[in-house]
């Protein structure tokens, strides 16, 4: 600790230069997901077996679409952080690790875009 400059101590980012950001974001989204995932369970349970018009109409309602969009964003941020830890734990070769982390990001963004696009289309579109 004696070798650290006062500036480094104030920044508090540590040797990984990311500080507690990963830890904190994982917790922040975890708390949000408790409420948002519970909402999803309720939504799916009430829409199970419903016909097309009902599902379409329900998903288009702002009071449904907005929590759903929040869940997609919060859930995907959370799961991308989680998968990052899994990859860093088990994939030891640097090349494979970077490739796996990139793939995980691509997967997350693809799933996220599909979900957001679908909900917005239902809300704003025909």
């Amino acid at each position, binding site marked *: 600790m004696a070798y650290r400059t006062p500036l480094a101590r104030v920044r508090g980012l540590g040797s990984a230069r990311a500080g507690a950001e990963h830890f904190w974001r994982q*917790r922040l989204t*975890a*708390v949000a*997901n*408790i409420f948002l*995932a*519970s909402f*999803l*369970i309720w939504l799916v*349970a009430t829409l*199970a*077996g419903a016909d*097309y018009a009902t*599902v*379409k109409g329900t*998903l288009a309602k702002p009071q449904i679409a907005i929590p759903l969009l929040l869940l*997609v964003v919060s*859930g*995907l941020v959370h*799961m991308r952080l*989680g*998968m990052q830890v*899994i990859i860093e734990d088990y994939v*030891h*070769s*640097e090349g494979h690790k970077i490739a796996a982390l990139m793939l995980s990001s691509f997967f997350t963004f693809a*799933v996220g875009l*599909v*979900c957001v*696009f*679908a*909900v917005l*289309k*239902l809300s704003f*579109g025909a």
Partner: protein
Amino acid sequence: MAEARQTVERPLSPHLSIYKPLINMVMSILHRLTGAALYFGTLLLAAWLIATAMGEVPFTYVNALFAHPVGQLVLFGYSWALVHHMLGGIRHLIWDTGRGLQIWQVNALCWLTILCSISLTVALWAVGLALRGQL
């Protein structure tokens, strides 16, 4: 991290297979496994939403997949993974505050997680099916 280039076959210290499974260890592994399952399970949510947005034909198709016994089993597993990971997450949030870290408390919280996740999931499905008169 430095790359460990193993040139000599050295003996490894005992790993997973040698330890008796303890509840906290099993819950730790399950938390990671359910997390990974939920990661890929988001494809189910994406499929449901995009099919609904695309129109009645894709919607009916995806709905039929979910209604199939195999689909129902996958959805049941997905809902358990979600509930289990959520309860495990709450356990971790409690531990984050420095509480519940005595060994007996750790074990009690771990047992509570698995017992509640199973009973809560079964209860959710029972209520859901009963409300639609399928039970």
